[in-house]
């Protein structure tokens, strides 16, 4: 005979309750309950340390971007002035023949300025590490929060069972929340080796899309 969904759910919770009790007993017998409590106590600290890292790296990235903005403006001024110098040398009759080194130096300044600007662009782009590492840190912080919540629940449940042999209430067990789309997103790929479900660079993205006719 088919069970009603509610009865089925109750049975699952009762089984989970028995497992929790067995786990609690095992932890007590092995002397691990204080260790578990210690782990739960340390998780908020671990989370705040990760958030501290994320904040500091973010601040550092912003400082670099501010300096890059300033340096780029100064480089642009150097480039413009070297262009003015080149124009002036060209406008004075015979100067570029009389003092060819002036022309050469001005051109070198201009080319150097352009190369420096390209380097600054690379430095700016490299600050995207904050986005990539920040996403990974956010995921680890969320994971730590989930583990903390579940371990805490386990401790509370075990403590309650130690005082009373009453069956656990379904609401007291932390059922996993339905996955949101954001949690389903994988974020940056930390270990791409051996994986075939991810791309590792832009050319693979382009190849994949081209193979599908996009």
């Amino acid at each position: 005979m088919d069970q009603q969904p509610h009865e089925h759910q109750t049975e699952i919770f009762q089984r989970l309750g028995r497992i929790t009790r067995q786990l609690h007993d095992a932890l007590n017998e092995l002397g691990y309950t204080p260790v578990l409590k210690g782990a739960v106590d340390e998780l908020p600290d671990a989370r705040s340390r990760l958030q501290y890292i994320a904040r500091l790296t973010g601040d550092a990235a912003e400082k670099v971007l501010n300096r890059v903005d300033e340096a780029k403006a100064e480089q642009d001024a150097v480039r413009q002035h070297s262009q003015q110098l080149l124009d002036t040398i060209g406008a004075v009759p015979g100067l570029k023949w009389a003092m060819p080194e002036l022309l050469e130096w001005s051109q070198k300044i201009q080319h150097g300025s352009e190369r420096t600007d390209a380097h600054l662009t690379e430095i700016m782009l490299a600050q995207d590490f904050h986005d990539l590492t920040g996403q990974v840190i956010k995921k680890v912080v969320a994971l730590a929060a989930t583990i903390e919540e579940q371990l805490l629940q386990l401790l509370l449940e075990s403590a309650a069972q130690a005082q009373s042999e009453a069956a656990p209430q379904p609401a007291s067990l932390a059922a996993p929340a339905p996955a949101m789309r954001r949690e389903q997103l994988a974020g940056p790929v930390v270990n791409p080796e051996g994986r075939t479900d991810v791309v590792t660079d832009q050319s693979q993205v382009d190849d994949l899309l081209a193979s599908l006719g996009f």
Partner: protein
Amino acid sequence: MPELRFLIVDDFSTMRRIVRNLLKEIGHTDADEAEDGVVALHKLRNGKFDFVVSDINMPNMNGFELLTQIKADDKLKHLPVLMVTAEARKEDIIAAAQGGAAGYIVKPFTKATLEEKLANIFKKMGW
């Protein structure tokens, strides 16, 4: 090419700033920013934009949801949406393409990649 107005959508301010600076270097100085899909959609519906550069992994409304909303809106569906994201799973790339994204760039990326993708999209748009 006409002067284009960009909307840069990313929950990380550093990334928004980087994309904005890159666009400026490429010659596109008119850009606004949004920190998630909800803010982006509000700005798109209340302003005039020609191009959207969007991250995927964002709070409140992610890039996929934003793309869906844009393509379902008669007034916005013509907008090209370039996804710039750390999401590197093939299924996400395919989903974005099938959802109507005009292009897909994985982070970290280079200025040359952004320039190339923009040029491809501009060409398709006849700009």
